[in-house]
């Protein structure tokens, strides 16, 4: 179970893996995620979006950035290794229909979860505009895949090393301001990017869906660690989401909640590195 069939480095610290998980592959829909745990005894459970699935091969594709303890360890695994636990597909699938003109905005690693949604939107007959952003050219992922399905593709980099120099919100604003106005925007990326995409579309009243990636433990509604404030209500990202109306999400609260364990994790991560260095030194 959960054997790694393929592994590829897409950018600095960004990896793509195909993992054997036939049941998840056949049930998953765009917008859903899995919970991954790589050690049965002491591992933690983290949510990762399903970037793609191959029902013939019985595999799901995960794209992740090695940023924390578990993603670092996952990145160290090779083809043929197994991932101890993969649970899914979780979350409510994206609502796909023919909206008309759909604009998909992906930032950094957020392009990975955006890809299946963009694919499904295209398949449903929508006109598809894609805006992809990254800090620099080296960090841009899935350009070819996105180019294949987009009616129009705009690439932005913060440093201007590729495409348009600047933030994704700039072309997003241009599209909102020019006719025909988009019928729907989908923005996935770092929380700050999603927050500003929502702020960009708000004055134009373009409905904007965002996909949230919060701290989770079980991923099935049991713990409530993933809760976010949406409008006046508290919602659980794992069962009510991960997609919400970006104009209603309290991003500031969400960004703060993501920091809950940061001081502790940073300290431990730092310690791990020190131990690593100590082990390597003679």
């Amino acid at each position: 179970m959960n054997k790694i069939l393929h592994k590829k480095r897409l950018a600095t610290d960004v990896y793509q893996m195909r993992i054997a998980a036939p049941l998840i592959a056949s049930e998953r829909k765009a917008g859903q995620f899995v919970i991954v745990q790589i050690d049965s005894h002491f591992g933690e459970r983290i949510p990762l979006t399903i970037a793609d699935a191959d029902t013939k091969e019985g595999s799901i594709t995960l794209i992740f950035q090695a940023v924390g303890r578990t993603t670092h360890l996952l990145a160290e695994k090779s083809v043929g290794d197994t991932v101890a636990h993969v649970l899914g597909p979780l979350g409510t699938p994206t609502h796909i229909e023919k909206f008309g003109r759909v604009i998909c905005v992906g930032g950094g690693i957020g392009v990975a979860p955006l890809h299946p949604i963009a694919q499904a939107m295209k398949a449903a007959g929508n006109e598809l505009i894609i805006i992809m952003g990254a800090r620099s050219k080296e960090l841009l992922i899935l350009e070819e895949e996105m180019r294949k399905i987009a009616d129009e593709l705009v690439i932005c980099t913060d440093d201007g090393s590729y495409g348009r120099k600047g933030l994704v919100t700039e072309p997003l604003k241009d599209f909102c301001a020019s006719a025909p106005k988009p019928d729907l925007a989908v923005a996935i990326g770092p929380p700050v990017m999603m927050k500003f995409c929502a702020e960009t579309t708000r004055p134009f009243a373009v409905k904007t869906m965002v996909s949230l990636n919060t701290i989770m433990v079980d991923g099935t509604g049991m713990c409530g660690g993933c809760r976010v404030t949406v409008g006046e209500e508290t919602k659980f990202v794992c069962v009510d989401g991960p997609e919400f109306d970006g104009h209603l999400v309290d991003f500031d609260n969400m960004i703060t909640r993501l920091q809950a364990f940061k001081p502790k994790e940073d300290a431990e991560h730092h310690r791990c590195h020190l131990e690593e260095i100590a082990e390597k030194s003679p």
Partner: protein
Amino acid sequence: MSHPTAEQLYTLAEQQLAALTTPLKPKDRMAIPAQEMPAQDPTLRRENMQEVALGYSEAQAKLEAERCLQCPTKPCIKGCPVGIDIPGFIQKITEGNFADAIGIIRENSLLPAVCGRVCPQETQCQAPCTVGKALKSVDKAVAIGRLERFVADWERENGLIKTPHVKPDTGKKVAIVGSGPASITVAADVRREGHSVTVFEAFHRPGGVLLYGIPEFRLPKAIVDREIEELRAMGVEVITDFVIGRTRRLTDLLKKDGYDALFVGTGAGLPKFMNIEGENLVGVFSANEYLTRANLMKGYDNRAATPIFPSRKVAVLGGGNVAMDAARCALRLGAEEVHLIYRRTEAEMPARVEEIAHAKEEGIQFHLLQNPTRILADERGWVSGMELLQYELGEPDDSGRRRPVPVKGSECEMDVDTVIVAIGNDSNPLIRQTTPGLETSKWGTLVVDETGKTSIDRVFAGGDIVLGAATVILAMGEGRRAAKAINELLARS
């Protein structure tokens, strides 16, 4: 008063037992001192995760058993949700025949080592006990739960647990959703009849609330693992990392995978919050999350990757077993102060008396007749305190408990950096959201008939998903009922 050591209690019991003169008259039995449960010293145990209650010695068990009058009315049996022949097993303990004692319990209960530890005996079997009534205190009732634990532990520690006999294969297949106490019961009862049984668990380890919820210091995980091993030994297949409703739809199990009947025992599993200001600040946790991090994910062990929030001053909201568990976990995970906030008085607390006593001994500070009105934040959006409102008891409500009424203008603040909400659970929405035609109540629990059958043919349910948040023994009772109905259904078809 210094804390008595287990050795002191064991020695005392030896002396008391030796001093008994047979035959014992009822008056003599009533005079036998109620046996205290030996426990780890509170000052030591608040630093470790090991079990707090250490269990009776043989002499203590025999003495406690001799306190039973073997009264003809046997009110204790009516108080037991699964109707164990309590005087019967107690009689066997007095004879020193522990094998027969556990055999009698096992006729009705599948999880004696668990129930002996976590059942609220003082409101069930021990509440109507004649001895307790005669001595005018439920605390003086025969300690049925401790005796149950004693014989269950005796059986396990001596390697005498016998795998139940399984009838020849019937070719029928039953799927069980969830692996908590209700599901374990159904799995065993249905498998015994020769049907093939598969248990699906969403977590990476089976056991449900017995694993993720109840802490090691109250219910050692090894005991739960032993029960699961027993199911496997009977031929029950246990599949983890499999969430019914998502990995596979409930009805697909019937239509596509060839199961002949299903049991849904997915538990309560959706934490309630108070709906007050500040509840989504950093540092506010549901008890489910806090306990899962601490127990299932082993947050107490520094090898665990799952982080525990570093707390200095913790407030736990609620008065049930889960609140006690969370408070005592927080203490063990390094909190300097743990405050328990409950809006009624101790008399109304739903927690087991023993857990309340243990929590107090460990230094948990109780704040009764108080309730938070909002949670306060520092400039970063992290919890910095709580505003509390004082209450007083008014007229009894529907549950018969006196309703707490707020005292106007009594707000005060308490400095805390962590708030754990332990005010109960709603039922988990996953199954009902993904199963059209499954009838639910307005609280989201599944509606079942008197046999445990849901609105869908061949689909049964029990435990907290039907009852709302209840107890292990009630879940087991529900499981028993559903298993009987499933076995009857499969025998007919």
